[in-house]
Structures are given as C-alpha cells and as structure tokens.
C-alpha cells in the first residue's frame, strides 16, 4: 500500500520491521526524527525493543556495539559532527566484525557551522571498514534498511545506510512500506556465532600485536571484498519479495550507448535524471548511480563505463588539499576514460536542474581538475579565489 510518509518516519518504521532488540538513540538533527519516531512506536507498543537514551554519540555507538556483540540485532543513527564523535567506535565495530546497521542522515561538518546536507560525514569514515550504501530516494532507503540487516548478519560486517539529510529525511513522498511478513520471511531471526555468553566465555577486542595484526586487517579487507556477492544477492532476493529493485551495486540509466557519462551518489541522481528530460537540446548521457561505495564495486563500475569517453563524477564532499573523494577512486578504476570531478551542493546548497547543462559545459573545457562546480567566487576576496 502506498502511503504519504516523511522519509525519517518511514525509516523508523523500516527499522522496527527488522525487529531490532536494542536501539541506542542520541538525537542530532536531521537524524533525530528517525529515533524520535522509533521511540513513539515503542511508547505506542508497536515496537518491542530496548530503547536506550545515551549521553553522546560515542555512547550510542558503544551501546549498539555491545548489544550486537551480545547477539542482539541492534541499531543506531547519527549525522555530521555526531558521526565524528562516533568515529573511534565505528572502527572498533568493524574491526571486531560486529554486525550492526546504522543510518547516517548525511550532513555537512563544521566549521563553519552548518546543519544542511552534504556527505562529508560518511565520507570522513569511509575507511572505518563498514559497508556503505547511498540511497537515491526514500523508497530505496526503506528497502536498503531491510537489506542492510541481512548483509550485516551474513557477512558479520556493519552496514551504514546513508540518506541525504533533509533532502530525503524531511521530504514527504509516496512510499510503500513492506509488510511484517515480507520482512520476517526475508530476515529470519539471527544468531551471532561469536556472541558474548557467560556460559561460553570468549574475549573480544583484546590486544593484537604485530605478529597477527596485518593478518586481521587483511581478513577484514577480504571480508569487505567478498561482501559484494552478498550485497547483490540481498538486493536480488529483496526485489523478488518486494517487487522493487533499487539496484545492487550501481545502476545505469539514460542513454546506455552514450560516450559521455555522469556518475553520482545519493539523492542527486533523481534531479540529474529529470534534468536530462528538461533539456532536450542537450545530449542525454549515461547516468550511473553508485549505490554501494564500500566495498568499492570496481568490476561493476568498469562494466558500467565500458565504451565511455568522458565521465563526470559528481559528489557532495571532497578532500581539501586533494579534490574529489569518489572521483579520485573512480579515476583510478577506469583507465581510458577521461574523468572530470565536481563537488556540488555542499552545506545544503540547492542543486537545480540547471546543474545538468553546467556539468556538460564544464566537461567541454577539457579541464579535468577537481572543482566545486557551484561555487560563487564573487563572494570571496580576490586572494581566495
């Protein structure tokens, strides 16, 4: 049944449908609505779970980690500065191979202080060892949430489902919630093989010396690479259950034979797709939506880029002093394709349909250097331009 739902309200329901045992909540807008809605569902008796209000994001991640280590299906969410405060725990969760799901309601990081959407937060923890899935719309976010638990539990890797803050979390649109039966059938109750148990004590997180540390890191890297197959099957199986396919690792639309491509991540893709129709005098491109960013789907990306001459990578974060983050990785992955790389929409700057011809025009210049495409240099003193 299609319902009119706000993104964060739908995500709260999606989390509850997955029957988590423990939810750790520390509010930070724009994620606040998700845990707020979960707490309402708990208060209404709809959700049977332990909701733990903590005093910081560090604790939220720690509580979720502890609960998952003890074998409970656990959840938390954060954004922006909150993700940074969690960062140490995020690395530990992944390193300990604890299956956990969280939402990152993507938002800029200060300074300067800014509450609006970009993806600097999740990109800052891309090396934490988590699987990262970026959602193009709220329907995909609902479906990815359910898939995330299956992926986490089958791979023993944590999954961060990234949804653009405000742009998705605070947008009301027609959404289809899965039924409890669909989710239960897809996501059976789960037993964590290494769960903490007083009758069968084990130690986790002990000191690991140089004698085995590289091996631990290698096995983590391998686990992430191997999770590709699990991510693809999780999507295919959920598509069979729900009738909806948000795309596995990435999707391609637009003109499949075009020699010019645009790759984007997150909610920008819908605007670009509509812009192609809105500017009929401009060429249609091959539009690539990168859904899974970690593990980096290099083979699928090469396949999607086959026959491309030029590709623009559009992202909502960058590494100051270097340039694009996704763009740099894509450039290293598709030799033979001329990769252009632009950041747009930083700190919530609106991304209008007119960005499409601007991207195409910028690619015409042949200058492949990174830049913030929608920057207004007239706002800066001469020496900063």
């Amino acid at each position, binding site marked *: 049944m299609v319902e*009119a739902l706000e993104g964060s309200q739908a995500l709260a329901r999606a989390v509850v449908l997955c029957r988590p045992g423990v939810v750790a909540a520390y509010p930070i807008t724009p994620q606040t609505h998700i845990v707020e809605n979960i707490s309402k569902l708990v208060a209404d008796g709809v959700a049977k779970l332990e909701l733990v209000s903590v005093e910081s994001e560090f604790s939220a991640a720690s509580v979720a980690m502890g609960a998952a280590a003890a074998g409970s299906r656990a959840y938390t969410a954060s954004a922006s500065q909150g993700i940074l405060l969690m960062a140490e725990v995020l690395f530990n969760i992944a390193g300990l191979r604890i299956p956990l799901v969280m939402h990152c309601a993507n938002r800029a990081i200060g300074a300067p202080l800014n509450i*609006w959407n970009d993806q600097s937060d999740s990109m800052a923890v891309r090396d934490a060892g988590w699987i990262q899935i970026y959602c193009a*719309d709220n329907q995909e976010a609902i479906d990815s949430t359910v898939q995330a638990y299956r992926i986490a539990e089958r791979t023993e890797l944590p999954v961060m489902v990234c949804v653009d803050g405000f742009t*998705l979390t605070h947008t*009301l*649109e027609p959404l289809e919630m899965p039924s409890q039966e669909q989710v239960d059938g897809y996501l059976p109750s789960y037993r964590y093989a290494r769960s903490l148990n007083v009758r069968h004590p084990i130690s986790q997180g002990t000191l690991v010396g140089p004698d085995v540390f590289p091996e631990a890191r290698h096995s983590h890297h391998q686990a992430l690479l191997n999770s590709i197959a699990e991510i693809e099957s999780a999507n295919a199986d959920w598509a069979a259950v729900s009738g909806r396919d948000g795309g596995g690792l990435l999707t391609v639309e637009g003109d499949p034979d075009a020699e010019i491509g645009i790759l984007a991540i997150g*909610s920008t893709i*819908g605007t670009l797709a509509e812009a192609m129709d809105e500017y009929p005098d401009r060429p249609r491109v091959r539009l690539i939506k990168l859904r899974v960013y970690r593990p980096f789907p290099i083979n699928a990306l090469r396949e999607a880029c086959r026959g491309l001459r030029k590709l623009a990578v559009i992202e909502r974060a960058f590494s100051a002093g270097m340039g694009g983050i996704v763009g740099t990785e894509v450039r290293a992955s598709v030799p033979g394709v001329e990769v252009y790389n632009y950041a747009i929409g930083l700190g919530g700057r*609106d*991304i209008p349909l007119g960005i499409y011809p601007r991207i195409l025009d910028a690619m015409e210049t042949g200058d492949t250097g990174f830049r913030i495409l929608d920057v207004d240099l007239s706002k800066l003193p001469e020496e900063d331009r």
Partner: protein
Amino acid sequence: MIELRIHGRGGQGNVVAAYLMAAAAIKEQRYGQAFPAFGAERRGAPVQAFVRIADVPIRRRSQVAEPDFLIVQDQALLHVPGVLVGLRRGGGILVNSIDSSEHLSEQTGHPTIAFNATALAQRHLGRPVPNTALLAAFLSLSEVLPIGALAGALSDRFKGKVLEKNLSLIEDAAQQVPGGIWKTMRRAPEVANG
C-alpha cells in the same frame, strides 16, 4: 507538474501545510512531494516549504524556484525580499490578509486573492492557525485536487475534536473563495517521458 511555494512564519504550520498538500495528492493516486527549506528555525522567522504535484513520479529534489502558485500565510511577508521571486507569469498568489484582492493584485503584479484565514481558523479552531484554511481555499480556487483529498490527508494526521474542527474549517474555507477561477492557470499535465 504543479509547483507551489508556501511562505509563512515559524509556528504557523508551514511544513505541515506542505505535507498535507502532498499527502492529499497521494490520496488521489497522484504523485506528491513536499519538503521544507530549513534554516535556523524559530517562532516568527520567515520560513518556506515546497510542494510538487504530478501525474508521474517526481525525482527532482531541487527547491521550487519557479512556482505556479504561492501561498502566503502572513501578508507582511509580501514585503520580504525573495517571496515573490520566480513566480511564473500569471501565477496566482493566495494571501492570508484582511486587505482586498484588488489592492494586493496591484501591489504584487500577479493575480492575488486575499483571504482572511486567521479569522476563519479562530472561529472554527479557536486558534489563529491559518494553514489548513489556506489549503482549502487554494484547492477551491485552483481545483488542483478535490477538497475531499485534503479531508483524507487531515484524517490520517489528526483525530477526534481537532480533526472534526479542521474538517468543518476546510469546508467553510472552500466556500469563501470563488471556486475554479484559477483552474485555467494550471499548466497542461505532462506526459510520462518514456
């Protein structure tokens, strides 16, 4: 596609108004999208929210820069820079005001309807919250959606006395503006793009 921008002040139920309008469209088996423009929100500060209604899925996420219609919850906002910016030629403005429509039309340069939503809300709800009365008046003027769709959206959000009062308010509000006079101002429905 029809695009609306709703201007109000923090505390006037701007976001709720946008959500209700999109939800009403979804009730009618159409596609609706609504979202607020976020700022440092506080009571009384100028705020805006956006609504799109279409017959095909809406994928763009950009703010509504060139609305077909404006709903303005406080007449004083007409003087705030940016409020009228981008309104399409001939686009209609519905303003919560005790002024006359003629005077406001002259002032804005667009077809403008003045409607005292605050007084009507005060009478029905006992609170000066103009949002649902304005939505009903807008639907009556434009016939973008039937009033029943708004009633349906309200029923999903509110219960009991609050719902009852709002339902009587929107019925009354819809009667108080010249029905259908903005109907021709709607753009032709778009065709699904293969």
